[in-house]
């Protein structure tokens, strides 16, 4: 598969806890991106990490990239009910992004 494969498929946590999602891919990449999709809405870009970067932060988000293992992780700290959404990690190995099935995160109040 050319897609970024997210793991787990579903995750349920309590508000305030941290959420960690993982992503694997199979080819060399230019960059890897994380997107969030709230129910009934389009995808929203969260963060982009380039192939020569190992870690990136944005607010409560922390993304790591391990090109030797062809994997990435997204950590959301101090989760909120509003973080309930599906999260995707498409990667770019050419001119376009291909998406996997995503991780469905539920944050319970």
């Amino acid at each position, binding site marked *: 598969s050319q897609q970024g494969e997210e793991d787990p498929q579903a995750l349920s946590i309590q508000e305030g806890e941290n959420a960690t999602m993982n992503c694997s891919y199979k080819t060399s990449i*230019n*960059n890897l*991106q994380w*997107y969030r999709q709230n129910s*009934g*809405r*389009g*995808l*929203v*870009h969260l963060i*982009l990490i*380039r192939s020569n970067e190992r870690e990136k932060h944005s607010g409560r988000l922390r993304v790591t990239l391990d090109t030797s293992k062809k994997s990435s992780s997204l950590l959301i700290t101090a989760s909120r009910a509003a973080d309930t959404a599906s999260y*995707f990690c498409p990667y*770019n190995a*050419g*001119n*376009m*992004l*291909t*998406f*996997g*099935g*995503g991780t469905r995160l539920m944050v319970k109040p």
Partner: protein
Amino acid sequence: DARVTQTPRHKVTEMGQEVTMRCQPILGHNTVFWYRQTMMQGLELLAYFRNRAPLDDSGMPKDRFSAEMPDATLATLKIQPSEPRDSAVYFCASQKGLYNSPLHFGNGTRLTVT
């Protein structure tokens, strides 16, 4: 905030009818993508354009689907004739520049074909 606009938001039609979905990309974005999302298949890339020229439409059923960009402010996706299996949410996304830029998605057109 600039955003991608898709119309209509919802469309219900009968099998065999023509469906046209429209997308207005963000001004200045030169790449436009069409994706389809279903529970079973997830997000599938149907086609994309750069500077209005089609670069890849291999994900699209050619016999019934067509995608065009009449001008830089409008992208269209047509299905003729529509079938129940085309029921899905269709997303348009635009991008400025090349592969190190994020995609900006519209809120989609939810299509139901009965």
